[in-house]
């Protein structure tokens, strides 16, 4: 405690020296600084960029962890990362990729695009949006600090109890998992709520539900899934926290608890989570494929219906992760049939994509390449998905490398390809510059080939009897060559990702400036406003006259949208430091609980309560800006 105070005072002194001390100009200087602007922003476009950058950083960390694992498995009997270290790597790889890379990158696209696609000036709750990001970020940071403070969690990303209890995972590792995810999870939950309200309430005049672009539809359904799925995780984590920190016995069978309860709770959250991360990718694909085929999306209504149906069925199938738990043939059969049923709406989507391209004029720009690479890859993941849904066959696949291959085909071939497509597609809208096409194509091809080389052989590894989550494997049972191939493939994905980073840096420096309609094929509202959009997005709220609102105007020979309101001053929300302060409070409290330092935890919770108090008595009513008239000298 004493050391902490000394360090705190020292930091304050240093800050004072470097910033010239606290005086009249100080506040002014801080307010106008760029850093302060980004830390306190409530603008959905900036929050989208924050989500994207944070997601990319965690994507790289998760990728490094994966590379280490494949290095260890390059040859049998390797001793690079064995035992507990390997388990830490596999746990952190899974947790990071799902919660800290896929989720924020989806929120990045949702933030950057959804308000623009529905003709809104911001999300419904800009403050909550900022809070959501900072909570996610402090949770993710807390989780990753485990590497430095006492070891990372090592019970798998599923953190099955038994193993995740104190007795079998002593040390703070699993505590970091519990509290880090709890904090990040609150951020995700309120983020999801925010987008539900935004899509329901902030649609521009004429933007009916059946005129929403598909990406917005999937974002909407995903937000609904978040609302219903994340509370299950919150409850599970809270119970595990009580077991680990306060000696409760929810999951300890010797005291009347049950590990099976954890498995149920985790997968009641966990399976919808799979759809939470895949549905927005479907949305991106729908928008990208339709744009670069220069054609209206084929079967829009059935696409919407399929999305909603997948979301709904996603809650009915969690037991297919637990076929081998021994729940009996009746429940296994019921959940097997429910799982197979999901193939139908997914199939509808695939055929609709194919027939969107049918008769179109397909341009292979980088976003379209990702979409085109996505289709066969995802279909393969879907095929193995149906195969896994059959309990008798699943008894063989379960927890083998076959499953690893399957979910990487779905999560990388589906979600990551979708995210890359979305990032390339909307990058000009977010940053005002087009990513380099040549580098983008190299990124695509190296990543695609590397991906298939890594994961295709893993189907066979599973069938040849290699369980998942193992740090080594036997020699002379036919596993060496396939593992070697699989490890070599990683190089392709690493090179691809490096090319992507180079592309980002190159584009930020020298990229081609993007026009409002960056691809010149824009169909939806976001392409009707400048790239990047002004802080108020739409100088005048547009009037929507049909699905593919901008395309409708283009076909009618109009150059821009018809405004639905006269030009006038626009009300904007003020930036706020409270989201980051409150997240800091959660961070300190989380850390306090992990190190069993109740005073630190109390300080953290006090910061949270104080920020709630500050927020409740915050009478800031925002400010008004006068938009530039787009007709006269408005930015193009």
């Amino acid at each position, binding site marked *: 405690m004493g050391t902490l105070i000394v360090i705190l005072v020292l930091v304050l002194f240093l800050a004072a020296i470097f910033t010239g001390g606290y005086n009249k100009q100080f506040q002014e200087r801080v307010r106008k600084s760029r850093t302060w602007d980004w830390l306190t922003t409530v603008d959905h476009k900036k929050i989208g960029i924050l989500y994207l950058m944070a997601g990319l950083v965690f994507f790289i960390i998760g990728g490094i962890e994966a590379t280490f694992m494949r290095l260890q498995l390059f040859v049998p009997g390797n001793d690079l990362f064995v*035992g*507990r270290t390997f388990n830490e790597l596999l746990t952190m790889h899974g947790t990071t990729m799902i919660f800290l890379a896929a989720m924020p990158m989806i929120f990045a696209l949702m933030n950057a695009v959804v308000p623009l696609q529905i003709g809104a000036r911001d999300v419904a709750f800009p403050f909550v949006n900022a809070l959501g990001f900072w909570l996610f970020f402090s949770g993710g940071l807390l989780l990753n600090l485990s590497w430095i403070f006492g070891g990372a969690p090592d019970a798998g990303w599923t953190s*099955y109890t*038994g*193993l995740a209890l104190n007795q*079998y995972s002593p040390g703070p590792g699993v505590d970091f998992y519990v509290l880090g995810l709890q904090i990040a999870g609150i951020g995700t939950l309120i983020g999801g709520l925010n987008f539900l309200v935004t899509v329901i309430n902030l649609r521009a005049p004429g933007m009916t539900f059946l005129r929403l672009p598909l990406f917005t539809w999937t974002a909407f359904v995903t937000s609904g899934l978040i609302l219903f799925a994340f509370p299950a995780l919150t409850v599970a984590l809270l119970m595990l926290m009580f077991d680990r920190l306060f000696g409760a016995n929810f999951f300890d069978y010797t005291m009347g608890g049950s*590990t*099976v309860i954890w498995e149920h709770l985790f997968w009641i959250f966990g399976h919808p989570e799979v759809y939470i991360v895949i549905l927005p990718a479907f949305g991106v694909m729908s928008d990208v494929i339709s744009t670069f*085929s*220069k*054609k209206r999306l084929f*079967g829009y*209504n*059935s696409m919407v219906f399929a999305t909603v149906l997948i979301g709904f069925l996603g809650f009915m199938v969690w037991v297919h992760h637990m076929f*081998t*738990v*021994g729940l009996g*043939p009746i429940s296994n059969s019921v959940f*097997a049939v429910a799982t*197979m*049923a999901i193939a139908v709406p997914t*199939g509808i989507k*695939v055929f609709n994509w*194919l*027939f969107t*391209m*049918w*008769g179109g004029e*397909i*341009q*292979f720009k980088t976003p379209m390449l990702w979409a085109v690479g996505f289709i*066969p890859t995802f*279909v393969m993941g879907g*095929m*193995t998905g*149906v*195969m896994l849904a059959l*309990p*008798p*066959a*699943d*008894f*063989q696949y*379960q927890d083998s490398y076959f499953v690893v291959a399957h979910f990487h085909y779905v999560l990388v071939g589906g979600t990551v390809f979708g995210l890359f497509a979305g990032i390339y597609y909307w990058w000009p809208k977010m940053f005002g510059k087009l990513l380099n096409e040549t580098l983008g194509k190299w990124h695509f091809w190296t990543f695609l*080939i590397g991906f*298939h080389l890594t994961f*295709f052989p893993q189907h*066979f590894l599973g*069938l*040849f*009897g290699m*369980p998942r*989550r*193992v740090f*080594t494997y*036997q020699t002379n*049972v*036919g*596993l060496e060559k396939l593992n070697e191939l699989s490890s070599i493939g990683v190089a392709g994905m690493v090179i691809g990702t490096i090319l992507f980073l180079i592309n980002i840096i190159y584009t930020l420096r020298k990229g081609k400036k993007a026009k409002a309609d960056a691809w010149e094929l824009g169909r939806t509202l976001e392409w009707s406003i400048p790239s990047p959009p002004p802080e108020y997005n739409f100088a005048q709220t547009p009037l929507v006259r049909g699905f593919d609102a901008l*395309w409708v105007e283009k076909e009618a020979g109009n150059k821009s949208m018809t405004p639905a309101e006269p030009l006038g001053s626009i009300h904007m929300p003020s930036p706020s430091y409270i989201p980051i302060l409150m997240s800091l409070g959660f961070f300190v409290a989380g850390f306090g609980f992990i190190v069993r330092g109740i005073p630190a935890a109390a300080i953290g919770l006090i910061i949270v309560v104080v920020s709630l108090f500050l927020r409740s008595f915050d009478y800031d009513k925002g400010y008004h800006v006068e938009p530039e008239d787009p007709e006269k000298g408005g930015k193009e």
Partner: protein
Amino acid sequence: MERLRVWRIGLLVSLVMLLLAGCSGDPSLSVLDPKGSAAKIQLNLIYWSLGLMTVVFVIVITIYVYVLVRYRKRKGQNRMPEQVHGSTKLEIIWTVIPIAALIALAIPTVQYTFDLAKEPPAKDTVIIDVTGHQYWWEFKYPQYGITTAQEVHIPVGKKILFRIHGKDVLHAFWIPSLGGKVDVVPGRVNTLTLDAQEAKVYQGKCAELCGAGHALMDFKVFAQKQADFDKWLAAMKQPVASVSASSSEANGEKIFKQNCMGCHAGINPNIQGPNLNKFATRSTIAGILPHNDENIKIWLKNPQAVKPGTLMPKIDYLNKDELNDLIKYLDSRK
């Protein structure tokens, strides 16, 4: 140019296929080489579903390749495609056909699911109680009063009912060649009915992450002809011959009693190690190292280096003679 690239990719894919065809799993471990009726049923279902899915895949890929080649933008072209809304007829087709295909898949699935859950009649069935421990397997034959570890013997052709008990954390009991796995759930008893149709040694694995040593939690299944199995049973029931006094085995026994008995004879209920009765008959040390004196020494001196996370402490304080005597004693336990 475009077409050339397509060919090159095709070439690459077929090369990968060839490479994969070049290696196949080992018959003692492979799902694709079943040696038990459960594994055969499961493989049938795997092939049936794979076949059906391959048909779907081929249809999708055919349309996909056609569309990409036929409708790509060509140089100098600037065509305005017709803005089609959809087609009810087509959409009904690709909703109804998959439903039909899934029904064709669901019927055998449900059938097999119930078939595999059926327990065989008690007589004519060998019952084996399996307990998964952090990183070893315990096998008890309640019908014969035998306890062993790491290696389980079964008669060929008979139904074996494994009753699977969980004690510490989750594990999963998996013999790929004989049939699918079932989880070892703490506080529950699961059952798994398997049989072997060929006399052979099969490999077993733990498939659920159970801690640092998970990768090395292997076991072996010795499927034997009924006569050989009966012989093995008889040998197992025979008490271990007592060692002659003042031999080096006798000294080894003393060392064993002082250092090993606490865990390996189940005296301490919290720390329980594998039963070492008949240790000399086992083919492996700790389930992974080949059984020889050198490996016993390696294991004893630093078990953690062989199997991370094992509860077995280092026995590195014995002098050379003591160690040799101990090993001699262990080797005498037939």
